Structures are given as structure tokens and as C-alpha cells.
């Protein structure tokens, strides 16, 4: 009728078929899903055990020493150590360890999967073209859309939280690995080829070291994005600081929310500074 303001026809998408599909997939591949879940749980528990085993003052000292070695600034090192200790003094240490174990597991998985994938994309123009929209989707699709299916497949708790975090945080490491390798001066690559290096040798001995700074910047971003998922992950039952924020928001306890929110900020800042430090010394060497 009025096709100027209304669409001439409507498509009805049978969304309930998708619902049924996901549910029956969960039933059929139950055994496989269980193995994946168990494997991930083991990694998570090991990392969590290690972090719990480290006494708090060792971790604080570790941050101070590591930052001092990178920056040679004793003042800031002490400030970061003090901030970390502050989390413990406000009684949020165990929650922070929970959060940290999820973030670290997610980052390890992201790097383990994302780095080789990024290399692959840097070698093939076609793969790069195909994967671009996929990567865009992974970063922009609202998390809840795939969070709930992840629940049906993997149940509630830390495992689906890690999965959701990986989907979101893996993108920068893939992108920047790809970019870093592509940005390596073609003349250097040509030179190494002319000395008889194979593709793999060129990649490992020339391209990756040359692209190291960019790749590390990708790692830093991956880490930050994993931290950004902490609160969202707690909505599917991941314990830790995010859950504390969620509880205080749900109860409109502004003060409690602010305290736990600040703890997340502190962890994020420390992780950011430490991981940026891996980049800088290298780039200084290069500029010499």
C-alpha cells in the first residue's frame, strides 16, 4: 500500500528453529562439550591454584620490582605496589585472584589461538579478506547474544565466562599480528629470501622479531579488553570483582560498587603498565 513509508513485504525468520537447533546440538555433542569444559576447567583451576598459592606480599613485591626494572622509576613502582596492596586491605584480595585467574586464562587462550591465526592471515590475502567481517562481528556483536547459547552448551560458571572473554578479546591480537607482519619492510624480507631463507625461516627469524612491537601492542589491547569483560562475565556466574560490582549495582549500594569498581581499575592499570613495558625496551633498542 504505502510503500513510501512501509516496506513492501515482511520476511519472517523462524527463530524458534534456531533455538531448537542450539538445544539439540547441545544434547548431541554433550560428550565433546564435556571434554572441552573439563579441559578448560583444569587450566582455570591450575592458574587459580598458582595465584592463590603466592602470598600477597610476593605479588606486591613482584609488581614493584617488575615495574622498576622497566621504568627505573622507584616512586611509581611503589605507588603501583601500594595500590595492589590496597585491594587486599579492603578485603577484596580473594575476589581479585578469582578475576585475575579468569583474565589470565582468557589471555593465554587468546594468544595461543590468535597469534598463529594472525600469522596465517598475514600470509594469505584471501583469508584476510574473508576474515575481516568475521573479526568485526566478533567485536561488535552484543555479548549477550552469544552468552546465553554458551550457557546452554557449557553451563554456568567460569568456563563460559572464559569463552565469551576470548571471543571478544582475541580480535586485537589477531589484527595486530597480521598488521605487524604486513608492515615489515618488504626489502628486508626480500633480502632474507635472497640469502635462501624459506618462508617459515623468514617468518620466524625476520618478520616476527621485526613485528614484535606491534604484536605486543596487540597483546596489551587483548589484556585490556579481557579486563573490560569482567563485569559482563559475572552475569553468567563468573565469581570475582565483577560479581561484587553486579551485586552492588543490583542493590544500588553506590559505595560498595565504587570500591569494587576501583579495584578493577587498579588491576587494569597495573596490567596495562606492566604489559606496555614489554614493548618499550625493545623499541628503544631499535631506535638506537
Amino acid at each position, binding site marked *: 500500500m504505502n510503500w513510501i513509508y512501509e516496506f513492501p513485504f515482511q520476511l519472517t525468520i523462524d527463530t*524458534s528453529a534456531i533455538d531448537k537447533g542450539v*538445544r539439540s546440538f*547441545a*544434547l548431541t555433542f*554433550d560428550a565433546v562439550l564435556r571434554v572441552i*569444559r*573439563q579441559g578448560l*576447567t583444569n587450566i*582455570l*583451576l591450575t592458574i587459580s591454584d598458582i595465584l592463590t598459592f603466592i602470598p600477597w606480599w610476593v605479588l606486591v613485591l613482584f609488581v614493584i620490582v617488575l615495574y622498576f626494572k622497566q621504568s627505573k622509576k622507584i616512586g611509581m613502582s611503589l605507588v603501583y605496589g601500594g595500590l595492589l596492596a590496597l585491594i587486599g586491605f579492603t578485603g577484596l584480595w580473594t575476589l581479585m585472584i578469582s578475576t585475575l585467574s579468569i583474565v589470565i586464562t582468557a589471555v593465554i587462550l587468546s594468544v595461543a589461538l590468535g597469534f598463529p591465526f594472525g600469522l596465517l592471515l598475514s600470509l594469505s590475502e584471501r583469508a584476510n579478506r574473508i576474515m575481516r567481517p568475521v573479526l568485526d562481528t566478533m567485536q561488535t556483536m552484543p555479548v*549477550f547474544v552469544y552468552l*546465553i547459547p554458551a*550457557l*546452554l552448551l557449557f*553451563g*554456568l*560458571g*567460569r*568456563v563460559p565466562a572464559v569463552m565469551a572473554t576470548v571471543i571478544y578479546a582475541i580480535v586485537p591480537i589477531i589484527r595486530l599480528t597480521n598488521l605487524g607482519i604486513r608492515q615489515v619492510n618488504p626489502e628486508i624480507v626480500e633480502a632474507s629470501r635472497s640469502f635462501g631463507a624459506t618462508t617459515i625461516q623468514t617468518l620466524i627469524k625476520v618478520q616476527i622479531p621485526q613485528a614484535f612491537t606491534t604484536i605486543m601492542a596487540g597483546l596489551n589491547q587483548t589484556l585490556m579488553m579481557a579486563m573490560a569483560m569482567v563485569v559482563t562475565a*559475572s*552475569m*553468567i*556466574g*563468573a*565469581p570475582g570483582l565483577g*560479581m561484587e560490582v*553486579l*551485586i*552492588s*549495582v*543490583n*542493590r*544500588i549500594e553506590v559505595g560498595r560498587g565504587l570500591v569494587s569498581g576501583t579495584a578493577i581499575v587498579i588491576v587494569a592499570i597495573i596490567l596495562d603498565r606492566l604489559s606496555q613495558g614489554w614493548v618499550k625496551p625493545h623499541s628503544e633498542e631499535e631506535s638506537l
Partner: protein
Amino acid sequence: MKKLFLLLVLLFFVLAGCAPSSRRTTFTFANAQWDSIMFHNAVMGTIIEEVFGYGWEELPGSTPITYEALMSGEIDIYSEIWTDNLPSYNEDVANGRFELLGLNFDDNAQGLYVPRYVIEGDATRGIEPMAPNLRSVSDLPQYWELFEDQEDPNKGRIYGAIPGWAVDEILRNKMDHLGLNATFNYFSPGSDAALSAALSSAYERGEAVVGYYWEPTWLMGLYDFVLLEDEPFNENGFMNGIGEFKSSDVTVGVRNGFSAEFPEVAEFLSKYSTSSTLTSAALSYIQETGASSVEAAKWFILENKELVATWLSAEQFETLINALES
């Protein structure tokens, strides 16, 4: 670049000045994201629209946020206030932070549920009874292995309430009171969607699961769950987790000043009263037919004319039925 920016800014102000000036009064309902509140919003909204001629819309948000918005006046009508789930409810009513109009229903249930096949088995699905003697919450420790927590195999897992609800604290105290902490982890599901996904996926796999839930909900209508018994309700010890949940009063509230401005609507809302059974029937109708909540509301009004007639004057009732049947 600069020109484009200026143009955009200009466009923004022009558009901002163009807001439609004459719009009819529209009431804002709280949509706290669970199914029954959306249904009751639709019933109230349909009647308000057809009988009183006002518009209605829903503002989505979490329970505490919408509740806070009711008290700040951003939300006009809250059709389902679960009084026991709001820690500050009694205080807020006493201080007159919103107007309490009436009781929507009070025959609901909440507590720890297990699927019926866990106790009785299910011959059609080939499930043997797993815990034939499980009757009450205090029987849980002897069956903890059934409910194994995959992230901590030495304990069972009880899916708890949504963090921040008052019942969450009560359940945590109940864990202490009944000594369930020795054999079970209290697992915070984080959100309503996560909790119902956990329960429904366990049900469809035929696994044993125990968790907090409440009625009326589509989940309880669709799947066969059994509420575990507990000691009788205990007024003094309730907050400390002693005794079962009594049914919670679910009330209708409006923002301050509402009944002075719209006395007729307020009178209708104060008479509005349904029951858990009626609500469940409507939610099952939605689940089965895929109807929208507004369609379900129309179906509900025509199915329950006698009840609806008690909310309205004879004249108003006639207007409503004529409008819906035409």
C-alpha cells in the same frame, strides 16, 4: 571538515527543536524483565488505553533500577512489586516514597526446586529415579554427588538466587543454618537469564539439578519441577534462613502524586487483582502460541470477564469489552 561538523551541530539543534509538541498522556510501566510483569503491564495498559484513553509504554531495566525509578517518579506504574525481594520495601512504604495501591497476587511460591524426574524418574524419557527419598531441603546432603559442581568435584552445586535480591541473602543464611556448606557450593548465577538457561538446559539433558526459582514463571509452567519442602515458616528466623518461604505479597504501586492526577486510573489499579494460577495460565498461553504479551492480555481479558468486571464500573467494563470484541 569544519563545515561538515558545523552542519551536523546545526542539524542536531534543528532536530532537537522539532520534537512533536502535542502528544497524549502516556504512562510508563516498569518492565523489570521477567515474564509475568510484562504480561500484567499489558493487561493494565490495554485497559488503560481502551477505557481511559491514555497511552502506555514500558521502560526496561533491572529490578532495583526500575524500583528506584518508581520512587524518583520516572516510572508511573509498577504492576508487580515482589515485596520480599526488595530489602528496603517496608521502609520505603512507611516513608511514603511511592503510593501503594493494592495487591496483585499473593499465592506464589519460591524456594529450591529439583526436576520431578530426579525423585520419581521418568519412564518416557528412560530416566531412573536418582534420589527417591529426596523430599526436603535437609535431605540434600546425602545426595550431593548427584548435583556435582564441575568446577569443584568435591562438592555439589546449588544454583542460588540472582545477586542483590533479598532472597539471595536468605538462601546464603539457609546454607549455614542447614549445614549445606559442607557438601554444597552456593553458586551465584549472576542474572535471571543465566539461571533459567542453567535449569532448562539441565532439564533437557535429563541431568540432576537443584536451584532457586519461583512461580509463576513460564519455566515452571513448561517443565515439571518440584519445590523442596522445608521447616514451617518462621517469622523470626526467616531472614536467618530458618523455615520455608511464605508466599510473597506482590503489590501494585504508582509514583507519588499519581492518584491525585488520575483518580479514575488509580481506582482501577487499586482493584486490580489476579492470582498466580491465572498468571501461569497466561504465561503458558504465551509460550505455547508465541503470542505477544498484548495479544495474551486481550485473550486473558476475554477469558476472565467476570474477574475483569470487578475491577471496573459497569460502564467502563462495557467500553472495554466492546473495544476488544469489535
